[in-house]
């Protein structure tokens, strides 16, 4: 096909740095990064953005987004982001955390930053497993799911039920927007981007804390092909972690 016949319909946002990522094939972090990058440009936030990354595979988001960034200790991103935002209230501040980081060691920090209504956004990538450390059980690991630390499968009697963070956070007074999206299909990705936009708007409009959970695949630690991982999200994760808007104070009427 000659060059004349090609029409560019899809390009990389400039704020997303042109370099190969370290993520495994089929991992959804790249998709989440791209959505964030697109929104920072569309909402003209790039120059104002201060990024807080945490521990795990996603710590390297700072290598892929061309914005100022600081690295938080494990689980503490919402506290670090609180400090950043209080220090520089005119900047746009968002944190990016995985499930082990946010829902386990960082439970206190996320709950209280949300409850204070910090003018920050938190992007929560939930793949039901500790990825970087090699596939251990997370607070979000589904019942029956096998991991390296629950090799017989997570059992309710022994490990308790998977934690539903979006539902919990949506009950807190400081939260202006809380939604759960998924990155397993084009349709869901588009919807997830709308949720992220709303969460970011909570901050730009000074409304309060914005939170978006993104159901994501970890084919390596799930020991699945990327395609089978996407199917697992649809068949196993979404029924337990229902998608949708759980709280929306960005406009009258609620849902996006």
């Amino acid at each position, binding site marked *: 096909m000659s060059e004349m016949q090609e029409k560019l319909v899809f390009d990389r946002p400039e704020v997303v740095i042109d370099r190969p990522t370290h993520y495994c094939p089929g991992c959804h972090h790249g998709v989440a990064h791209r959505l964030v990058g697109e929104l920072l440009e569309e909402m003209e936030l790039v120059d104002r*953005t201060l990024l807080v990354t945490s521990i795990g595979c996603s710590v390297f988001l700072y290598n892929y987004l061309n914005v100022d960034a600081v690295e938080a200790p494990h689980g*503490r991103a919402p506290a670090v982001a609180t400090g950043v935002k*209080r220090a520089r209230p005119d900047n746009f501040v968002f944190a990016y955390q995985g499930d082990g980081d946010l829902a386990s060691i960082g439970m206190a920090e996320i709950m209280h930053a949300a409850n204070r209504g910090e003018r920050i956004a938190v992007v929560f990538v939930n793949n039901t497993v500790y990825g970087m450390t090699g596939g251990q059980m997370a607070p979000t690991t589904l019942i029956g799911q096998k991991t390296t630390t629950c090799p017989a499968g997570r059992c309710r009697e022994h490990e308790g039920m998977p934690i539903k963070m979006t539902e919990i956070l949506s009950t807190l007074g400081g939260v202006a927007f809380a939604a759960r999206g998924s990155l397993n299909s084009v349709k869901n990705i588009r919807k997830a981007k709308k949720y992220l936009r709303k969460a970011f708007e909570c901050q730009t409009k000074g409304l309060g804390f914005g939170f978006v959970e993104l159901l994501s695949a970890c084919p390596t630690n799930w020991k699945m092909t990327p395609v089978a991982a996407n199917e697992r999200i649809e068949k196993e994760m979404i029924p337990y972690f229902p998608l949708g808007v759980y709280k929306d104070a960005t406009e009258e009427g609620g849902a996006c």
Partner: protein
Amino acid sequence: MTKQPERIFIKGNEAIARGALAAQCKCFFGYPITPQNDIPEFLSKAMIDAGGDFVQAESEVAAANMVLGAGAAGIRAMTSSSSPGISLKQEAISYMAGSEIPAVVVNMTRGGPGLGDIGPAQGDYYQSTRGGGHGDYRLFVLAPGTVQEGYDMTIQAFDIAFRYRTPVMILGDAILGQMKEPIVPWTPENVDPEPGAAWCMNGKTPDREKRLIKSLFLEEGALAGQNKKLMAKYKAWQDLVEYEAFETEDADLIVCAFGSIGRIAKSTVRSLRAAGHKVGLFRPKTLFPFPSAPLLEMAKQGKRFLTIEHNLGQMVDDVRLAIRTVADSDFFPVLPGNLPTPDEFEEPILNCLEGK
């Protein structure tokens, strides 16, 4: 400096809080713990009135990480706590040291280990001067002995923190925090209104590279390079050692003590001098860097040494390291649960003087 005309009669804790305001600290993040609550209580209003921000965090862990965030954004930020709370802050302190984030951390120490008590003690000397958190780093540690020094050293701490991009600790104790003295407040000139602007995160504009503040160095040789840089920084601090030498010149025996105990020991030295005994006091004001060189000079003059601390013996290690080639130091412990009087130090000092 601009001297303000009036003296004010305040607690050590309040002096530290006021010193932070004078140093243009803009953010305070804290969590209640005795005996330092006057600091967050005072700043919860004063910091807001001064156009800054105050957050009572959900934990000491969160408070220290809020300081990490504000410091990374180049803003003067502080947290304060007491011994058990400082243990919890060590995670963030280690990260701040590794990421080269400036901050001031105040420790008004109490008795330990564990929950201990709420009375004065100096049991956190090792924790303060040996890093405290994980990894290979040091803190710049200032040890005020008077309420005025609490004020002065807080201002000094912010300057050092931003000059060297490092967390700085003020190591006081329950005595200093709770006692009242008159002080002369002053306001420093030339405090950079946008401190650290050349490195901090404040929003990437098209004309500059993005700024990344982190302590993760995975590439081969990168961490070695970073730690070498830290080592050079700590070495440069040697020029900043401060100490008080009182009646040391012709002394046969030097009493080494810091903070509140140093101040009490000074009274003992004064009264023993009046009785004709040749004793002097050496009070380090910087615990790291430790003023080793002047101590060694005194040792070379043939003086003897007695270290008095409100613990089982911690700073005495640094005294011994300083003078090890020519002399040694005796040690007298003050156990927690007591506020020692100058009289209590007379016997151990005289015993040591007489070589008993």
